């Protein structure tokens, strides 16, 4: 059902955890749907220096979380904001149609974390 790339990210997820004193944290999801993602970012001079995630969810949810952290590390905020859910799914070599909704969370979590950072630093 899942591509090799999805299974790779599922069984060896990158950047799992939580950043202490994160500059921004985004949590999205709904237990009714069986997936919740929490993504935290460390931002230095407009660049995402570090990013970590924690996810309660299915294989697609975990793989997309892992992939989005890989995609975004080292990117500046503009580049990060341009990453869409479709970008993540594409980077994983596609997801089964029934899993599209899971892939709609990873980029959302990233955008929520950036938003959180911007709110905190809006002086």
């Amino acid at each position, binding site marked *: 059902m899942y591509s090799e790339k999805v299974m790779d990210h599922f069984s060896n997820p990158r950047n799992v955890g939580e950043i202490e004193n994160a500059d921004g944290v985004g*949590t999205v999801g709904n*237990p*009714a749907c069986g997936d919740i993602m929490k993504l935290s970012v460390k931002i230095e001079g407009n660049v995402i220096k570090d990013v970590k995630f924690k996810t309660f969810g299915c294989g697609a949810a975990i793989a997309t979380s892992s992939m989005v952290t890989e995609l975004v590390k080292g990117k500046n905020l503009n580049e990060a904001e341009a990453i869409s859910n479709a970008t993540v799914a594409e980077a994983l070599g596609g997801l089964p149609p029934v899993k599209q909704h899971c892939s709609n969370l990873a980029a959302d979590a990233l955008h929520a974390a950036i938003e959180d950072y911007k709110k905190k630093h809006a002086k």
Partner: protein
Amino acid sequence: MKKIYLDNNATTAVHPEVFDAMLPYLKDEFGNPSSIHWAGRNPRKAIDEAREKAAKLLNCDVSEIIFTSCGSEGDNLAIKGIAESKRDKGNHIITTKVEHPAVLGACKYLAKTGFDVTFLDVDSQGMLDLEQLKRAITSKTILITIMFANNETGVIFPIDEIGKIAKEHNILFHTDAVQGVGKVPIDVKKLNVDLLTLSGHKIYAPKGVAAVYVKRGVRLVPLIHGGHQERNRRGGTENTAGIAALGKACEIALRDMAEETKHITALRDRLENGLREKIPYVRLNGHPTRRIPNTVNLSFEFVEGESLLLNLDMKGVAASSGSACTSGTLEPSHVLLAMGVPMESAHGSVRFSLGRGNSAEDIDYVIEALPAIVERMRSMSPLYSTAAKQAANITFSESGSCSH
């Protein structure tokens, strides 16, 4: 890699004796059982013998067995067949919220065509309230259809008591016994059952064959209008090989059930106790004792079921889950939700259903492998690591349905 199959409520491996019993009808004995010539005679005999064996397992007469293509067809034939034949007597049907989709689907279809359907609740252990059943009965009630044992939790309903209630009120009673037949003794006479569905591939026969018991004198309108087969109740050239296989599987069930039940119950309890001892925050979904011997359904809190299944699969262990992600929908198991299991626990449910092929080594392997998987998944779960308490502070849309 080791391969351990713990998904026997989904389907079973064909028993070697069953395999041998069906082979002749896929080779030399190919004739149409309805033919009067030499080619049809042995296939006809095979079907007659299979019918005797199925009847013996249920303690009914051979004339009361109808062979069908699958359990879902059997359920549809029983429910829609009775509804249509009793339409002039009433339009009310009683069932439960935890039935197999074949029963729920047939009932929902009838509800669209002018029938009234009552879906009974279950309690947190998946049990029925018989008083609620009695209260639901009206003068228009023509059929009660309630499963023998639940496919997800293994919970056994009090079929004998329901049969009594149905009989007292002169209402026909159908039970979907697909998960009960072969696992526990079933005597349709003692249970006051008028119709009963069983399926071949859950009892070590192949897919594509099933049967319905219909008590003598109970009339039902067929789903398939066609030939005279099955006494005009199910048209279509018989699946001789499948029917022979089902007969053999029934014979073996009768012969081996007592011994296998002992073996399988011991393994199931070993698995259940072993996992609950080694893993914290595990919830048993279902009744602790009123269960078919092979099934245990556990929720591993803070982790999602499909992830667990994928991890188990990587270790060669096949099980199933009530998680939405394994059902092709966004909602988790309707059975667990009817029991009041919280959404996130329902998503984290895993059903282990054992079979005759399992050994103590298999079980110990799972008890060894699963704790590490759950721990790893929990270490990644925002519901667990920030402690269950804090998780409550995350703002969820607390609606009962999935909205994104």
